[in-house]
Every structure is written in C-alpha cells, then in structure tokens.
C-alpha cells in the first residue's frame, strides 16, 4: 500500500527536475472550468479530468488548468474558458470528448473550435 514514505523518495527524485520545469515560456494558456453547483451537476468534473489528462499526456507545461465559480450562464454549463494569445474563448455545453478536442485543436495547434463557442450555442 502507498505510504507517505514513498512520497519522501519521490521528492528527492524531483528536486533535480524542478528547475527545468519552471522555465515555462511567456505565452501561457490559462484554462478555467466552472465548478459551482450548476457546473458540477452538468458534468464539469469529468470535463476538468479530461483537460488535466490531455495536458499530462502531452506534457503541456505552459498550460495552467484551474477551476472557478459560477460563470453566470448556468444553462450552458459545463463551461470552459480558454485564455490564449490575449483573447478569451468561452466554450459551452462541454463534454470530456469536446474538451479533449479543444485541447488538441485549440490549445496545442492554435485552431479555435468555433462550433463549441458560446456564440454558436446560445
């Protein structure tokens, strides 16, 4: 069974790596997932999990993924906001599959997934 002792060993191993990690480029992408009652009930948790999973899988160190409160359009939840290149993109009615597509198409390749944006769906 996993114990906190293993964590101590992990820390020793990671000490040498932390320096490389902090050299992130200036063009960081920030992603926020609405995680209030409305978002949670609509399925925001699996969406957040999918985003984190894609970021891990693709080793995207210049992407910051976090959660936020109610974004204000409860009927369009789950909502994912992507801040990239000085712009904000609001993706609505997200699912884990759509979230993965946004990660690949938009965050990695820079092509906005227009079909999921709020303007197309409200």
């Amino acid at each position: 069974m996993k114990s906190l002792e293993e964590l101590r060993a992990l820390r020793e191993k990671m000490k040498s790596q932390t320096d490389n990690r902090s050299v992130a480029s200036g063009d960081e992408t920030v992603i926020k997932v609405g995680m209030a009652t409305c978002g949670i009930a609509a399925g925001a948790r699996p969406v957040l999990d999918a985003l984190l999973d894609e970021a891990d899988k693709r080793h995207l160190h210049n992407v910051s993924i976090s959660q936020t409160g109610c974004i204000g359009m409860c009927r369009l939840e789950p909502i994912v906001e992507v801040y990239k290149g000085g712009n904000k993109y609001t993706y609505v009615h997200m699912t884990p599959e759509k979230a993965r597509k946004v990660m690949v198409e938009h965050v990695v390749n820079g092509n906005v997934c227009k079909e999921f944006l709020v303007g197309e769906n409200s």
Partner: protein
Amino acid sequence: MRELALNILDIAENSLSAGATLIEIAVTADFAADRMRIAIRDNGKGMSAEMLARVTDPFTTTRTTRKVGMGLPLFKYSAESAGGSFHIESEEGKGTYVWAEYCISHVDRMPLGDFGGVILQLITQNPSVDFSVFAANGERDGALDTRDVRDILGDIPFNTPEVRSFLKEYIKENLTDIFGGRL
C-alpha cells in the same frame, strides 16, 4: 447531482468560498447497521443564525448574480430522500459543519460515485488550503492529511504530474478501497 461525491465537492466549494484554510471531510459506513454518513467541517467565516435558518431554502444564496442557490438544498434532499437526515451547524467567524446520514440500502440513495476523484481534484486545485480526509467502514479506516504531505513536499506543488499521480494512487488505496465499491 448523480453522485454523493459531487455533493461533497459542491459543499467543499462553499467552504472554499467561505475562506476556509482547513476542510475536514469524512465518509463513514456501518454496513451492519446499514447506515453511512458524510461530514464536512471547515474553519471558514461561518454564518449568522439568521442565515443558518434559511440556508437550505433554494431561494437563499450568497451570490449576487441571481437569487437561487441549490448546493445545500440538493445535499439535504439526497439524504432525506434516502431514509436519512441532514444537519448543519455554523458559527460566525468559526466555521461550518455539515453532515448527512443515509440508509445504505435505500433504493433512492445515490451511489457515492468517484469519491477519490473529487478528493484529488479538491487537493490539487486548491493548493493553499489544507484537507483532512477520513474514510472508515467499521473494520478498517484510512486518512489523508495534506498538512503531512506538505511537510514532506516543501515547495513542490501538489499539481505537478508526479505528485498528482502519487496522490491518486494513495487516495485509491487508503480511502476509496475501504468501501470496496459497495457504496
């Protein structure tokens, strides 16, 4: 809400909004007595007696954007529709304590769901807040206290991939496996 774990997430989010620095979450099951209990205690700003009296009314909320707040009412409903009960205590400046009991075998009791995933999310997404999580089934119990993890990790953040995957395994083996999928 389709999982009790999502209710836990939602109530813990309230604690975070209340400025809590420590959130204690306990899920305990007594299979012999057919009862389970979910408890969430925080050291946030708490609320007045007047607010406490109407906090489970869906038309009460601290939000200013609209007049409905469904978190606590949904949690209360999840327990009361499953042969259980709901309780809340709060004191301004001290914190809030919410707990609910369920009849495990009740046909309308929601499954616990992805409890481990919710705990992992809370811990990794809120690095400045401490969580003390406890799970017990009457025979065996397990715990995770982020203060212990913080002592070991120092300045390495909880959301680095290596730490996250350690925590994921740790939570599974020490917390969720205790229920063996029976909740």
